[in-house]
């Protein structure tokens, strides 16, 4: 499903290049659950961003569902990723001015779904994550764990094939973290490919495999 070949990413500082990603070769199959670990600055978030095409590599090949992503036109690539990827962030990144319901609905608006379709999908997700009672609350009125559940629900609204999570439990206590990991396991069982970046060995263990990164390289 995802195949990276000889991927490099660097920043130019004067004449020097400081590499963030160095010669990454990686293949992830559909239905996989991958945990990326490594110390701060090892390039794990950058790798996740590149996989999610929020960031572009300087060199290398990236195939998503058999297609050469880097050769695609921007518009087509955006459509492809919008249709198949969902993102979860460490600090949730909910929109403060919108209610829980509206936050989940936002990506569907950008997909130009009709209001009835959106309503059906959001209601379904609220149900599934047991947050129906909180749908009219604002993010500030929720606990961190609850906010992250909303974040995951929002990521899943577009029924993505891949869920990208950057330290999804980083701002949560261990009990809340466990709940999120249980949720990921369940999602993975339902067929969603999950790639998560984490600091925690315990959370990493929920994955089928663990990639250790150091200085921009996979060990």
């Amino acid at each position, binding site marked *: 499903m995802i195949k990276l070949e000889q991927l490099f990413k660097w920043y130019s500082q004067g004449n020097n290049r400081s590499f963030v990603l160095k010669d990454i070769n990686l293949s992830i199959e559909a239905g996989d659950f991958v945990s990326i670990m490594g110390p701060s600055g090892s390039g794990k978030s950058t790798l996740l961003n590149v996989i999610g095409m929020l960031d572009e590599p300087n060199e290398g090949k990236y195939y998503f569902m058999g297609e050469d992503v880097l050769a695609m036109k921007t518009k087509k690539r955006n459509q492809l990723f919008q249709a198949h990827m969902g993102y979860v962030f460490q600090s949730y990144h909910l929109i403060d001015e919108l209610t829980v319901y509206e936050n989940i609905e*936002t990506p569907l608006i950008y997909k130009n779904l009709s209001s009835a379709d959106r309503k059906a999908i959001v209601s379904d997700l609220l149900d599934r994550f047991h947050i129906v009672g909180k749908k009219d609350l604002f993010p500030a009125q929720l606990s961190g764990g609850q906010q992250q559940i909303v974040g995951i629900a929002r990521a899943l609204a577009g029924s993505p094939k891949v869920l990208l999570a950057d330290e999804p439990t980083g701002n949560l206590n261990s009990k809340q973290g466990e709940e999120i990991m249980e949720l990921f396991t369940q999602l993975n069982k339902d067929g969603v490919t999950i790639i998560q970046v984490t600091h925690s060995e315990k959370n990493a263990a929920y994955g089928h495999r663990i990639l250790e990164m150091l200085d921009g390289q996979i060990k």
Partner: protein
Amino acid sequence: MTASRILNRKNKGFTFLNIIGLAIGMGAAMLILLWINFQWSIDRVYPKTHRLYVVGQQDVSTNNEIAVWFSTPKPMAAVMKAEIAGVENLSRLSGINGLLFSVGETKILSKVGSFVDSSFLQLFDLPLLAGNPSTALRDPSQVVLTEKLAISLFGTSDVLGKTVQLDSTQQLLVSGVLKEVPKSSRFTGYEYFLPWTLMEKMGYSDEHWGNSSVNLFVEMKEQANIAAAQAQLKNLIKRHSEVSTQSFLKPIKESYLYNTYKNGQQVGGRISMVKTFSYIAGFILLIACINFMNLSTAQSEKRAKEVGIRKVVGAPRFRLIGLFLRESLQLTAIAGLLALLLVMLFLPVFVGIVGQEVNIPYLDIRFWLLFVGFIVFTGLLAGSYPAFFLSSFNPIRVLKGRFQQLHSKFNPRKFLVVTQFCIAIVLIISTVAIRKQIQHAQDRDFGFTQDNLVYMMEVGDMKKNYPLIKHALLERGIAQSVTRMMSPLTERWSGWNGFTWAGKDPNEVIQINRQSADDQVVATAGFTLLQGRDLDLAKFPTDSMAAIINETAAKAMGFKDPLGKTFNDGNDQYHIIGVIKDFIQESPFEPIKPLVIEGANGFMNTYHIRFNPKLSTEEALAKTEQVFKEYNSAYPFQYQFVDEAYAFKFMETQRTGTLASLFAGLTIFISCLGLFGLAAFMAESRIKEIGIRKVLGASVFSVTRMLSKEFLLLVSLACLIAFPIAYWIMDQYLAHFSYRITLSWDIFLLAGAGAILISMLTVSFQSIKAALANPVDSLRNE
């Protein structure tokens, strides 16, 4: 924190906008205030200003409306001094133009001067460089010159007792040299004063109570009872003559600003202009201050973290308040200096637009106090919000980054933006409406043919040689026709309500304008003849007692078939030989008044020459000059184009229009500067949200739209508020013009659309910039 560090900070773009906006606003307000200051000083500069009055007259005119004017019959002065209690001194003034002064070979045709009574110089305390003010204008052989005219004539100002020749007739002794008359005096520009006794000697004086032709200025005693004097004065003319006119005293200090009368009542005048512009100055300043506050508070919220840290390390609250106020004061001081620079730079341009000498009173301490006071006021006002609001925060809350109050439903910043744009839109609408009004009057059919037509005043030997001059002009193919008239076509010099005709209702008062012409007036002026024929003195010698009237006069006199009818002007009876289509003699903004053009029997002082269209204008002028060299050699050849004289009628309104558009432009510019900064701030404060939305699939367009929408709503709201206000203001303004446009919706639509377009262009730059940014940068975990 010093000002230089504020300027060098990462936000220097903001700071720059902020200072520029405030400087422009302050500069514009300063220019207007300088102009207003000048307006207030006009005719208030005399040491005895508070005791000086000008005598006004009023009488019933057409439609029983009461007309007011400020000229008086010549015999009034002596009678007034004898009969009215409290009169200390008085002087008549009768303006003249086109007198030729010569000293040896130096000849100067001086445009502005007047005959005055001997007390004139003392009345107004006009300072003499040389000569005795109490005796300088006593004998008919005396003349008082300004220093400037003296130097042009003699090459020196030391000319007391020297001889100057006036026209070809009078030898006068210079009895006084006048310093330049202050710009704020009504006598500014006057180059000479001649004794009244000379006027009598030259035979220009008359004792008719019905001829109001000279100004009369009165100095009242310090203890004088003005009300009693007014009562005594009221029917003074009636007591001495058959004339029904009533008189009154008007304080000279009010004569410039309060100059408009409607049906005998004082109803504003230039004062309304002064008021309007003081409002505009206030508004521009307000807008600039709003900007300054808006931008500096927007910026200071970004400094909440700095405040938090300072508090954590132990800064007491008053120190923080001091910090913000000091910074704000430093910025306003920079803006103030910049504003002063702008004013110096643009003062000449501004003077050109308003057509009046406006100066920066560098030596006036009040100016500097006001200047510093304003800087301090603005600085404190703008600094107060961040100073008191931010310093009140709980540092932990601020440091945790939960400092968010940006998108609340009511936000003072939004209120300020609406206010700003409201003012800007009102100004735009006013500008458009004034322009349309001018255009409207310019498009009006003026009723005569303006091109190829010049006029000149009769001076020197012109009167004596008129038949020769006319013959030469026609014979040599220079002119198509030549007509001697009372006044220039575009001016009204005479008129009264004493015309009579068969069938006139004796109780009805009808004011009719009077013009006179000797011959071929329809041909020369290019009038449209509706009935009858032109004046033709060669063919019909009786045409000296004939008259041509305009349509409105025919209607006013009630003549269905005016040809052959007669009317009386005093003892003279004229028979009507032609009716012309109405033409604009007076204001193009007013309805046309009844007019009779009397034949050669009337007073005539102005020549109109219609050039032969086969000649170029230069050629025609050169040949005309030759003719006048031959027959009026002592005088320089001077002439005026009728079309230029006509265009002059629009000058004051055009000035208003130019000023209004200038200030509307400035207001919009300052508002947009503010909007630009605010949009940048908004985009920056929502950068995370924009990032999230983009990750969730929002397009650049949808983000841009989201960011601009809020401003669109604000500006639209401003439109809704501004429209009725602008309508009300313009309705009042246009009421000054009888011939005027109706305020149509398209003016409002245009202004609204313009404001929205400009604001959206301003905002969208920032929105697009924000929308194009890479979301990863903004979403990176801290």
